[in-house]
């Protein structure tokens, strides 16, 4: 294991560009989970980001909330204003591991770890978050809902660092986050859902339902068009088009599809005037 230390962002970017295969490490919480079994990870080079103070704070402007590249879940939980304006961020943060993990884990790390079962990504995506990437070659912004290209694949080059996450400030008339795990705490989502409604329209984001966390365009269209839904089963055709759950060590495709339909139906029933 080789660890490179950087004191400032440009230095970190230089190290990433110089190595080509180095892995940036913030909280290290995802790295640690697999450390005993992934021996190959012990041979890699890591760039330690923990001294990059500039990336830690979150900032507010008139038009947006900007999370830093090192902003932790705990930072968000502690921020009362986020609790009022973006409550789903707080709800999701509280669902990540235990407090120790919440204190170390970062939102940017959650994005680049690219787990299809992430807790932070669905709520960011439902709030139309934009990923800000920086490298020696400049700055690039990618909307989070276009960030992932396949299982654990994303539009981030090895020399790029996530330095910020921009979240537009909008009034929301509806917002909900649901996580169905196999226990009440410290669980990995079997089904995750984030649903919001604002002037920009409906956003339905599903976790653990496809190789990546993704928006569900058919469900969003169904909601935009105010289609009448009489039963959770009526949502299944749209769900089948939007996502492709699998059987794995945590759950089954059938369970995931059914639960997504039922939870979505139950959550939206009153708002949408469904029976």
């Amino acid at each position, binding site marked *: 294991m080789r660890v490179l230390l950087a004191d400032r962002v440009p230095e970190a970017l230089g190290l990433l560009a110089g190595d080509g295969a180095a892995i940036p490490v913030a909280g290290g919480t995802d790295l640690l*989970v697999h450390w*005993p*079994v992934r*021996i190959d990870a*012990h041979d890699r080079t890591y760039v330690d980001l923990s001294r990059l103070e500039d990336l830690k704070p979150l900032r507010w402007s008139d038009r947006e909330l900007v999370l830093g590249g090192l902003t932790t879940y705990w930072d968000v939980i502690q921020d009362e204003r986020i609790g009022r304006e973006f409550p789903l961020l707080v709800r999701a943060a509280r669902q990540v591991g235990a407090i120790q993990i919440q204190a170390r884990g970062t939102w940017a790390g959650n994005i680049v770890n690219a787990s299809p079962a992430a807790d932070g990504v669905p709520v960011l995506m439902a709030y139309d978050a934009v990923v800000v990437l920086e490298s020696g070659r400049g700055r690039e912004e990618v909307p989070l809902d276009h960030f992932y290209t396949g299982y654990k694949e994303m539009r981030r080059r090895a020399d790029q660092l996530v330095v910020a996450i921009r979240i537009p400030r909008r009034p929301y008339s509806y917002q909900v986050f649901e996580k*169905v795990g*196999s*226990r*009440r*705490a*410290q*669980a*990995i989502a*079997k*089904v995750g859902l984030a649903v919001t409604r604002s002037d920009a329209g409906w956003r339905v984001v599903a976790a653990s339902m496809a190789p990546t966390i993704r928006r569900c365009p058919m469900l969003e269209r169904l909601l935009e068009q105010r289609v009448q839904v009489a039963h959770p089963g009526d949502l299944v055709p749209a769900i089948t088009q939007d996502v492709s759950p699998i059987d794995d*060590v*945590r*759950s*089954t495709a059938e*369970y995931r599809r*059914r*639960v997504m339909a*039922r*939870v979505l139906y*139950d959550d939206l029933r009153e708002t949408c005037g469904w029976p």
Partner: protein
Amino acid sequence: MQRREGLAKLTGRERYVDDLPLEGALWGMTVRSPAPRGRVSAVRFRPDVNWSEIVVVDYRDVPTANEILLIERDQPVLAAGYVRHVHEAVLLVAHPSREMARRAARAVDVVVAPEPPALDFRAPPRPEQIQFGRDNVLKRLQIAKGDVEQALARAPVVVEGVYETGAQEHVYLETQGMIAWLENDVLVVKGSMQCPYYVLNALQHALGRDERRVRVIQTPTGGGFGGKEEYPSTIALHAALLALKAGRPVKMVYDRPEDMASTTKRHPSLVRHRTALTTDGRLLAQDIEVVLDGGAYVTLSPVVLSRGIIHAAGPYACDNVRIVGRAMFTNAVPFGAFRGFGAPQTLFALERHMDVIARALGLDPVELRRRNLLRDGQSTATGQVIRDGTDRIAVLERALALSGYREKQHSHAAFNAAQRSQRRGIGLATFYHGAGFTGGGEVHLNSRLQVAGLPDGRVEVLSANIEMGQGTLTVFTQIVADRLGLAPEEVVIGEPDTARVPNSGPTVASRTTMVVGRLIERAADDLRHRVGLDDRARGAAVKDAIMRWHREHRGEPLLGEAVYERPPGIAWDEERYQGDAYAAFAWAAYVAEVEVDLRTCTTRVIDFVAVQEVGKVINPTLARGQVQGGVVQGLGWALMEECKVENGAMINNQLTNYIIPTSDDVPPIRVAFVENPYPHGAQGAKGLGELPIDGPAPAILNAVAAATGADPRAIPLTAERLMEIVERTH
């Protein structure tokens, strides 16, 4: 009294095997089989490791017998050219750096010419799968009472049911670990274990060393639950073999994934019930078939099966009982001891079946149990006449009252009618657990224990029974202090070191407080006699007499001693499996209240009441803790803990994917004890350690059945499984 080692544990000062300094030690790692069955056709050492730095051990390095000494001698210390399960140990490697040792272990390719494995214990084996005897049956046992066939033929009602339970991982906080080194010519092995003398015997047998040349010491043990009953012999042998070959100390500590994948689990089970009853619910006959998955070696399966079948008919009076049991060989990682030892499996089936019967007869589950619970003078399936004076109906009534059972049944009906997707229900289990070794087991063990008087007047307990979180140090201290009228700080509990302590037997089978505690009392009495006092002498008189003795016998040890004596009136027929299976039973009634979310089919236990009669409670805090811990472990087994298996080996072998309850999944657990002192246990105590894992699973599933109208018959009842059942029901 406070837990003796509590502060050291709380402050992190307690030193477990991995914390012990070991000068010049090598790290040992294990190379394991990739296949469930076959001949090892090649072992290849990949060149990316400098093999001249690595100590390598294989079966040819076992000096005397390549056998792990247990009930049978079928399990090799290291596979000798043939493997019977995935993760079977084939080779050992050691290196001063843990990282290098790990790399070396992964740089060995064990090539296996595969042969057809037997992987489903429920299905009869095909000829090419047979590897043990004529039919892969590791052990067959039977209990017979009365005439079952005749009773079944004549009965107005017969109810049948099939019930299944899954494997369970112990999840002790501290993984398996051992260190081994040579001190002159003495092999010293130290580590995490429940039974120092099991380890000692296994080392002597395989290494051909007499007891003067081997010494086994237990280190503070971070949980066992049976997982450290027989398995430590294996890792102790591995560490010892490496240390002997290297001529240097060797340390082996499994990481969590290796521990979960390659060590023993609770035996999976399938139990069939065919029960004859009168129309008003009196038991006429119980016909029960118990099948256990034993895995690839015999380990303790015969005795797990024994305890399983003895508990299979439950605490009920029935004149006609037939229980046939078999433990099956499969090419799965061997199953082994786990808290409850077969009884939780058969009691799950029985207590779920009682509710199935109640539903079939339109009877109240409480009433069905009340009508059949054993009264004094009636006998169990083995014909053991129960005459302990415990009012088992009163235990049940206490649990009903504490849980508000009747009131909740009414309030749940209203709740369920008003709610869209939440359903509440309440469920019950009445059960028992036999304390100590089965049948003549305690006589065979012939446990011996000493209480030493020290020159400063303190006394020291010399016993091979160990602390693993359950409270042995504290309870032993209390027993001696109470017996001799000493303060707790005047009592020392000696380190379980086979060079110093006599063999007081293994720390298993709910025997420590009841059986070994009683030996302590008798050894303390003997100590008193040796210094010229009678049994009434206490406190300062005892201390003074001990000090005086030492002044008169300088340099000599002062030892009071006791050897196990069978309580009077106990008789067991091993051939016919009849008689007094246990010297004493603990009795219990548990009530679970659940809420099921019909959208996700997630079950949450929202209230739990555990009432038991365990003789005398010696330390109420520890006893309550034992019960609460057992309930949590039972809750996990019932609802979430699932070993996902491929080729007979666990594939979700990490705590991210093997789901145990968090504190947020645990309801308030209200514990109550009914006391009826048992004359042959320490201070009147009976065994308690295992009882609390017998009741939660059936009580919880009965509650789910009440809440949803569904009829779940298998655990773990995960949300996925419950959803299938609920879909089928509606």
